[in-house]
C-alpha cells in the first residue's frame, strides 16, 4: 500500500499542494483526478521525492529512500518525452536498467511488450507522443516494480493504444501490483480505475471507489419523452419533483421510473420513452471540482 501523509508544497506564495493525505490500495488501479493546476503532478513528484516539500510517502510502510533500489519498487512515467533525442530507446532503457540493478535482458523484453522493438535502435528525437508514451511505459515497468506512478499515460495514444494501455494496466494490477494513475480522460478512467482520488486547488476532495463516488455524489434522474410534455411538467412540479427540459424531453429528479410511469398512466398521457439516467464519473467530477478549477473557460467561450 502507498500511504501519503500531509503532503504539501509551496511555490513562492502559491500553495500548490495543501496538506494532502491518502492511501492507494495494493493490487488496484487508483485514478488521480483533478482540474488543470489542481496539483496532481506536483503531488506525484512529492511522493517520489523529486520535489522538496512537506509530508511523507510510504511504500509498504517504508520510505522510498529506505529501499536499496527504489526503481525496483516504484516505476514512474511523469513525462512522455523524458529521454535524450539522440540516445536510442535501447540505450535509454539500458541506462535505467544499469542504474536500477536490473538485468539487461529485460530491456528487449519491455521493448517487445510496448511494441517498440522495431525502433529500438533508432533515435527517438522524432517519436510521436504516442511512441514516447510507450517508451515511458517501458521505462516504468523495466524493473517489474510493485508500484506504478503514471502521470497522464494515455496522452497522445491512438484509440488502439488506449485500449492496449487499459488492458495492460489492468493485467499488471491483476498480478498484485498497484497502479496510481492520473488522467484527464474521465471516461477512460471510469473503465480502468477501481478507486479514485480527486483533488482541487491542492486540496483533497474525495478518496473512494468509483462506484461509491458516483452513487453518493450525484443524484440519479429519470428521462421521459412524450407528445404532451407541458402537461406532464405541470403534473410533476405539482408533486414537488425537480423537472428540467433536456433533449426534447424532461429530466425528473426525486422519483423512480415506476412512480413516473404510474403518474403518466393515471393522467392518460402516453410516454414515448422512460429511462433511468445515472451520473457518469464525468458528471460527478465536474460537480465535485466546480469550485476548484484553477483555470476556467469563460462561460461565453464554453458555449461556442
Amino acid at each position, binding site marked *: 500500500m502507498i500511504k501519503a501523509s500531509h503532503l504539501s508544497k509551496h511555490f513562492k506564495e502559491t500553495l500548490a499542494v495543501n496538506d494532502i493525505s491518502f492511501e492507494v490500495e495494493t493490487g488496484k488501479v487508483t485514478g488521480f483526478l483533478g482540474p488543470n493546476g489542481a496539483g496532481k503532478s506536483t503531488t506525484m513528484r512529492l511522493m517520489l521525492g523529486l520535489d522538496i516539500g512537506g509530508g511523507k510517502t510510504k511504500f509498504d510502510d517504508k520510505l522510498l529512500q529506505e529501499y536499496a533500489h527504489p526503481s525496483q519498487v516504484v516505476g514512474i512515467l*511523469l513525462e512522455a*518525452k523524458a529521454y535524450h533525442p539522440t*540516445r536510442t530507446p535501447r540505450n*535509454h532503457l*539500458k541506462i*535505467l536498467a544499469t542504474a536500477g540493478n536490473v538485468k539487461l535482458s529485460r530491456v528487449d523484453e519491455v521493448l517487445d511488450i510496448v511494441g517498440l522493438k522495431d525502433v529500438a535502435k533508432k533515435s527517438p528525437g522524432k517519436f510521436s507522443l504516442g511512441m514516447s508514451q510507450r517508451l515511458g511505459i517501458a521505462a516504468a515497468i523495466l524493473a517489474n516494480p510493485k508500484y506504478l506512478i503514471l502521470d497522464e499515460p494515455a496522452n497522445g495514444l491512438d484509440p488502439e493504444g488506449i485500449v492496449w494501455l487499459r488492458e495492460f494496466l489492468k493485467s499488471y494490477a491483476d498480478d498484485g501490483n498497484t497502479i496510481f494513475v492520473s488522467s484527464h480522460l474521465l471516461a477512460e478512467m471510469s473503465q480502468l480505475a477501481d478507486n479514485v482520488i480527486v483533488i482541487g486547488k491542492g486540496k483533497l476532495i474525495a478518496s473512494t471507489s468509483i462506484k461509491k463516488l458516483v452513487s453518493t455524489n450525484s443524484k440519479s434522474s429519470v428521462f421521459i419523452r412524450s407528445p404532451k410534455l407541458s402537461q406532464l411538467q405541470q403534473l410533476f412540479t405539482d408533486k414537488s419533483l425537480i423537472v428540467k427540459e433536456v433533449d426534447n424531453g424532461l429530466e425528473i429528479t426525486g422519483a423512480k421510473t415506476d412512480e413516473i410511469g404510474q403518474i403518466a398512466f393515471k393522467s392518460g398521457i402516453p410516454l414515448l420513452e422512460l429511462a433511468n439516467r445515472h451520473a457518469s464519473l464525468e458528471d460527478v467530477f465536474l460537480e465535485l471540482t466546480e469550485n476548484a478549477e484553477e483555470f476556467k473557460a469563460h462561460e461565453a467561450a464554453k458555449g461556442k
Partner: protein
Amino acid sequence: MINTIKAEFKKLFTVRSTYAIFGIALLLVIFFTFYISGWRIDSADLHNPTTLASDITGAIDVISIFAALSALLLITHEYRYNTIMYSLTSVNNRSKILIAKILVITGYALLFTAIFAVLSPLLSVLGIDLHHLKLVPQIIPYKTLIWHCLFYGWGYVMAASVIALLIRNQVAAIITLFIAPGTIEALLYLWLKNSVVYLPFTALRVVLMGHPDQRITVGITPYHALLVFMGYLLVSWAVAWVLFLRRDAN
C-alpha cells in the same frame, strides 16, 4: 553505487554530442599541431628545444573547453530532457548521483587530456618529418607537464560541471562557460590589474602555462595558482551540492 557510476558512463557515451565534441577537438588539434606547428613550423621553433612542450600545453589549453562542454552537457541534458527524474528515483540518496557524476567526469577529463597530451607532440613531429625538416633535440619536463596538463584538464571540466549544476539551464550554462574565462576575467583585468591571477580561470591557466598574460608582472607560482583555483572550486561545489540536495528536480 557501482551501478550508478556505470549508468553515468553509459549516459556520457550514448549521446552523439560526446563523439561530435571529441571529433571537433581532434580536428582542431590536427590542424594546430600537425599543420601549423608541424608542417608549417617556422625556423625559430625548429631550433627551440621546448617547441614540443609548448605544443602540448597549447593543445591542452585549446581543447580542455571541449571536455568541459561534454561534462556540462552530461549534467544539463538531465534537466533539459527531464531524465533527472529517473536518475533520482534510481538511488536512495541524491548525493550518490553527484558522486557518480564527479567520478565519471574526472575519469573522462583525465582520459581526454591524456589522449591529446600524447597526440599533439606526435602530430607535430609527423608534420615536421613529412615536410623533411629537422627539429633540435627537445627538452620535455615530463613530471611537471603531466601534472600541469592533467590538473588543467580536470579543473576546467570540474568548473564547467559546477556551472552546469548551479545554472541547470543548458544554454545559459554554455554561455557562462564560454564567456567566464575569456570575456569576464579579461574585463576584470582592467580593474584588478595584476591581481587578476586570483580569479579562478586565470589561476587555472597559470597552472598550465605560467603567467597567462605578459602584462602581468606580479605573478604567482603554479602551486599557489592551484590553491587559488581549488579554493573557488571547493566553495562552488559545496554550494552546488547543497542546492542539488535541496532543490526540486526540474
